[in-house]
């Protein structure tokens, strides 16, 4: 074989070996394992950690809430309408991208920090699905939020876990309570609130007759726990059991405190007194428009003024009332209290 040909051959073989060596070094060994791609990439992509954990994960700690949800409208498997925990609470094991949840700032992973992400603004949250907009199918329950409950937080009335379950009066109706038994337990109440809960002139306690049962029960429970601060009421309530509270609330709720004159004339007067925003829940004459809110009927001006000051000062706390009380100055507080203070029990 001529020498120049042999040299050419050697060069070619050398190039071939270099090509093999380079390919071995540069191309991943799993390339072409399954096709024209790096085979290991499949398992690498599959290794990512899931962030949404599913309802069973939530149930393991939040069994009560899960149970409420599983019996409510947000769990309707027959129509495939299932609003799972993480739709509203965000991913159980992951970041909170928009920081839209309370407690999210304390740590990205739940339950590592033992704080559940609770949506801060339920009005903004619920309307994501329930605001009436063009394109939304008619089967979806929809509201026009401007015309629904005066733009209050949805969670004020609805239990978000079971939205057709209402808070307040309906919950109390389910809880019950025996008015007759309650009357026998009111000896400590009468000196300040009157024997039937009608606070006549000279008595220092507010009128309880005709008040919402749920509101009364909640108030007694709050005094007992110290959430509502009043030294006299703390003493009285601290000896009451849960069933005592239900019975007493049922008794005073069953007593009569008839309304004074109502209607359009009174509403106009309420507006003039700066009480228009009160009337949207508590009614123009003090009789609440919804079952969830307390009656102002027969309350004294002093009591109402004191209650508003407590909300403004933080002794009492309520998502709506605290904000309203803080927005009123002393003159406004006095005007509102004077207006509702005029609606006496008949």
């Amino acid at each position: 074989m001529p020498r120049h040909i042999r040299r050419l051959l050697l060069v070619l073989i050398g190039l071939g070996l270099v090509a093999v060596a380079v390919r071995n070094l540069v191309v991943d060994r799993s390339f072409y394992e399954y096709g024209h791609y790096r085979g290991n990439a499949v398992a690498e992509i599959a290794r990512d950690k899931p962030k949404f954990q599913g309802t069973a994960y939530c149930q393991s700690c939040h069994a009560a809430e899960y149970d409420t949800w599983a019996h409510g409208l947000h769990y309707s498997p027959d129509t495939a309408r299932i609003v799972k925990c993480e739709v509203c609470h965000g991913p159980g094991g992951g970041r909170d991208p928009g920081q839209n949840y309370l407690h999210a700032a304390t740590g990205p992973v739940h339950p590592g920090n033992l704080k559940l992400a609770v949506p801060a603004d339920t009005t903004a949250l619920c309307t994501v699905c329930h605001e009436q907009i063009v394109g939304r199918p008619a089967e979806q329950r929809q509201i026009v939020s401007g015309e629904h409950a005066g733009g209050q937080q949805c969670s004020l009335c609805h239990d978000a876990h079971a939205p057709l379950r209402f808070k307040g009066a309906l919950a109390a109706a389910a809880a019950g309570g025996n008015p007759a038994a309650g009357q026998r337990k009111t000896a400590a109440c009468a000196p300040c609130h009157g024997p039937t809960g009608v606070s006549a002139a000279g008595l220092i306690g507010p009128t309880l007759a005709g008040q919402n049962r749920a509101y009364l029960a909640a108030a007694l429970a709050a005094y007992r726990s110290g959430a509502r601060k009043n030294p006299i009421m703390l003493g009285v309530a601290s000896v009451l059991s849960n069933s005592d509270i239900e019975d007493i609330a049922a008794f005073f709720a069953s007593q009569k405190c008839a309304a004074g004159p109502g209607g359009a004339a009174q509403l106009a007067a309420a507006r003039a007194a700066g009480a228009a925003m009160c009337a949207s829940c508590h009614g123009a004459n003090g009789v609440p428009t919804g079952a969830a809110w307390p009656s102002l009927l027969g309350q004294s001006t002093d009591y109402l003024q004191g209650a508003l000051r407590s909300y403004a000062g933080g002794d009492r706390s309520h998502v709506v009332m605290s904000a309203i009380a803080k927005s009123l100055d002393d003159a406004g507080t006095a005007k509102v209290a004077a207006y509702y203070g005029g609606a006496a029990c008949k």
Partner: protein
Amino acid sequence: MDDETSADEVQAGRRAFLTCFGSALAGGAVAATATALLPGPARAAAGGAPSPAIPDYDWKQHQWAFGVDARKCIGCLRCVEACKAENEVALDAHHFRTWVERYVYVEGEDAPRIDSQADPVNIAASGSEQHYRFANRYQDQKVERAFFVPKLCNHCTHPACVQVCPTGATFKTDDGVVLIDHTYCIGCQYCVQACPYGARFFNVEKKVTEKCTWCYHRITKGLLPACVEVCPTGARIFGDRRDKQSPISRFLAENRVDVLKPETGNAPNVFYVGIDKDVR
């Protein structure tokens, strides 16, 4: 004589050359064979390649597919936000692995008006590029009909994006998912151009292309994709076509379904119910 001799010599020289050239070709062939006998294909040739090393998962047992019942979609966009959280997609109004379009037919107009969650009006309604909600538009028009259409990667049977990828960075898995290997992606974006559905986008930070994976890290663990997991109305359906009782098998058995742009020949694996000729 001189002429004859030289002719013989030429013949001999040509024979020798051809012999040598043949040997050289043979050598080249040996080199090529050696190249071909790299570990990967060698394993592939020997009794079929095993499944990728995913715990408790054999991709030969599954064939994934996706369904969308547009009649049920309420446009709440929980899927879009869940996808961003699950897959750490950029939190802006320009990058989405899945998105929702609204088609509104206004009286007297030939073509529908189409907006998505990324529309400036809708971003203004949500107040942030990180939260999404459809604004209450078209109140002053007479709307004949309107509906929402969720969209995502179609994980086509004949994906154009895979065909154009110059590095083998994007590929179709045996269980029917189109994935992107971010270590092999060189960011040329040919695939972004090739996809007829606009399902791919460029991740400027990582310099790679990104798209929906049907949450491959979830489905290989027996979970649903994040968008399906959070859909509150069952408008998104996912499952294994090999399992005749899976939600997607029942969905396909019970409905007459459409795919988007069938004329492109990509053979999508996202099946729609309740869309319209204008949805493409």
